[in-house]
């Protein structure tokens, strides 16, 4: 059997609540800086939760430079376009007319929907009584606006990215709630391995910081209501944790077949070495307390990467800061890593960024690539009193430390668990990151 194709990560792009590019985000994650603040995107004064982790000072037009395209984009698509542009620029390669059909695109995308202003317009025109009057929709300007239609489809993101860059191979959107981004990266890995394409623009994006988005999570009591201390609201693995902090943003990676990347002299952050995914099949909103489900996804990712627990130096935890997730994830890490648990550094960078939902997994895989590249670990911010039930080697201060293998966990509502494993490039072919 021919050797399996390896996959290199050669470009990164980030738009997060703690920085609108890779460098500023990485600096903030090392410092444990929080993106949490009172919600500024709408008047949240009546909501039980009035805080979130918003992307700040983002200028889509300046970042993208294509006003026409942006008419077809909502807030989250703007983040996606910017992160993708950064990643392609960083990789120093773009699809061409000649090779566009050998490029793929895999994105973790949020739930489809219209912006709240547009929802309000439809409400005022066609549903003032509270019930939709379908007849009134017929002459409702917002309900007939093709731009609103184009911005609100589940494939809007993938359509904008493939169009902008001429990506003509396999293009797909996936959604497994909070695991979406991780699953998109895993999809990209498989597409290159099986030869469907040679390069993939892979990532995730989301923005649910809107009245409807915040409402949905408030109704489930999933969010921290620490309205007076937003910067401390997200504290994964702390005994006082009380829910997650809703974030927004995007992360994109350029994935390339390993040999092709090396031949062109690309700088390689890491090998995208393994993917694992499982279903907890327990409850829609929780993982089981014993870690069943995440255990399998971590084991699969390591086995797929040809790595053992002894090779792993860093775990970027899902670590949402909800009571159940952090407990279940800790249990799973203990089962998988056994005695080695105390020697594996763990941090949830949601402690800084908040939870980017469909974007989270992709952003966090990029964070793992940066940890390998820089030999430095981002911190688990806001940890004052670790929960004894989450007895992990949590990163309290950023530390320089070589990372041979890093894994990124993402677990979604619905029970999908994704684990992605990355390996230091010099351990693959003796060559490090060549800038």
């Amino acid at each position, binding site marked *: 059997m021919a050797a399996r194709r390896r996959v290199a990560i050669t470009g990164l792009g980030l738009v997060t609540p703690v920085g609108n590019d890779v460098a500023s985000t990485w600096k903030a994650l090392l410092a444990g800086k929080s993106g949490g603040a009172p919600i500024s995107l709408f008047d949240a004064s009546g909501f039980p939760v009035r805080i979130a982790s918003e992307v700040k000072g983002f200028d889509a037009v300046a970042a993208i430079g294509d006003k026409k395209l942006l008419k077809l984009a909502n807030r989250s698509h703007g983040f996606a376009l910017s992160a993708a542009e950064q990643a392609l620029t960083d990789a120093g390669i773009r699809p061409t007319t000649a090779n566009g059909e050998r490029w793929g695109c895999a994105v973790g995308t949020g739930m489809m929907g219209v912006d709240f202003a547009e929802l309000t317009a439809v409400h005022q025109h066609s549903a003032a009584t509270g019930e939709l009057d379908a007849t009134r929709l017929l002459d409702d300007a917002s309900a007939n606006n093709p731009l609103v239609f184009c911005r609100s489809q589940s494939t809007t993101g993938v359509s904008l990215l493939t169009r902008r860059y001429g990506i003509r191979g396999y293009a*797909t959107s996936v959604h497994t709630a909070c695991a979406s981004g991780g699953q998109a990266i895993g999809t990209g890995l498989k597409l290159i391995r099986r030869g469907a394409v040679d390069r993939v623009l892979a990532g995730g994006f989301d923005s649910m910081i809107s009245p409807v988005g915040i*409402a949905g999570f408030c109704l489930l009591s999933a969010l921290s209501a620490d309205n007076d201390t937003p910067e401390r609201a997200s504290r994964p693995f702390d005994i006082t944790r009380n829910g997650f902090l809703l974030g927004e943003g995007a992360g994109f990676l350029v994935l390339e077949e390993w040999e092709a990347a090396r031949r062109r002299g690309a700088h390689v952050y890491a090998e995208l070495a393994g993917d694992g995914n*499982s*279903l907890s099949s327990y409850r*829609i909103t929780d993982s089981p307390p014993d870690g069943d489900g995440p255990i399998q996804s971590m084991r699969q990712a390591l086995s797929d990467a040809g790595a053992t627990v002894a090779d792993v130096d860093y775990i970027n935890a899902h670590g949402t800061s909800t009571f159940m997730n952090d407990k279940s994830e800790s249990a799973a890490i203990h089962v998988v890593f056994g005695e080695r648990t105390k020697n594996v550094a763990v941090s949830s960078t949601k402690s800084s960024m908040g939870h980017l939902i469909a974007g989270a997994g992709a952003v966090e895989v990029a964070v793992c690539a940066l940890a390998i590249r820089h030999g430095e670990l981002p911190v688990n911010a806001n940890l004052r009193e670790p929960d004894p039930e989450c007895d992990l080697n949590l990163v309290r201060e950023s530390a320089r430390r070589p990372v041979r293998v890093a894994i990124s966990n993402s677990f979604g509502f619905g029970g*999908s668990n994704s684990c992605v494993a990355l390996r230091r490039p010099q351990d693959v072919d003796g060559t490090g990151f060549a800038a």
Partner: protein
Amino acid sequence: MNKPRIVITGTGAVCAAGKQTQQILDAVCAGRSSIGPIRQWDTSGWPTSVAGEIADLNPREMVEDRKLHKLIRRTDLFGLYAAARAIDAAGLVASREALAPDAAAQYSDRTGVYVGSGGGNYDSQYDYFPLMTEANDSLPAFGRELSNTVNPMWLLRTLPNNVLGHIGIRHGFKGSNACITNHSIGGTLAVIEAMEALRNGEADRAIAVGHDAPIEPQMVLYYGDVGLLATDAIRPFDRRRDGSLFGEGGAALALETEASAAARGAKIVGEVLGGGSASDAQGLLAIRDDGDALARAIALALEDAGLRPDEVGMIAAHGNGTQQSDASEAAAIRRIFGANGKAPPTTAFKWAFGHLIAAAGILEAVLALRSLQERIVPGIATFESLDPACEGVPVSRQSQQPRSDVVLVLCRGFAGTNAALLLRAAM
């Protein structure tokens, strides 16, 4: 390198034409269309007022567990129903029950779930209208009254991956999985990704399912506004075609490795031979006139399956009935099979029950498989005369004979995405 064989051991389907695969195919073969007036709201004055609605929908018949109905939406009913039918037909759960506890746990961990889902709808956001009225468009009041007015389970009911999660919980499957929200090719990609996961050893068996329920006012309005909807019927490749119409429902295939099927003594109804997908990259709605990405998807599927075009015995075309999609689909078929009637007998199914969007490709795969088993390429009852722009596509009002036991199923979606799937029927 020989790829492992991936076999099909069960199917399930539901749409306006019926709640079983055979019943749906019988309606198609009898030339019976299930397109009719939309009943979910008053469509008087609407430019398009027909669709393939499941008229006598009884949620309890779809999913018996009444408690679950509070947590899911109409679209999810169809996915869970179709999946359960395929799982039953294949005996996937029954086989596990015969195993010792350790082996049963292993069996569950090695059973995957791959879903193509519509990705959400407009009506779910419209659930907030009563609250918005109560709040008189004041956001602070909206926030304060939230928990008194809106169903606390709102977000969970809205999850695009509900079918994936609930198949797992209901049937105890815990293996590799994906929820693909890639518009109309989602269901087809679910089959392709399940096949690849089995080939790659990520699972031993998997359920692939697609489901959608696009018949809601805002969807009908938007699709109509951008010129995609027909006035009364879908007429694929016909001179008079004027658009597509929505349908709703779901379909599922139980797939496994040959070894898994042999170990269970499962009856094999067919085989997934290969798949391919490619994009036009022209934007959300635009498609290339030359059908380039569809042609490339077909070529990739043939290469994946190790087949020549002349080994394909039947084509189940996308045939959605819009001017541009059908003409460019014909261009792609000509590019692969040649211009002069060399393409195998071709049919399209959407005329009979509408366009199921995320479930379209997988439902048509299920029906194509059953058609081949009956050695028939069903006719298209709404077809009268071939549009010259669609030359080279051998469609007919009458049924035709397949040339072999292999069918090519074509599927196209927004964002210029295209997928092709090759199946072999066990005869």
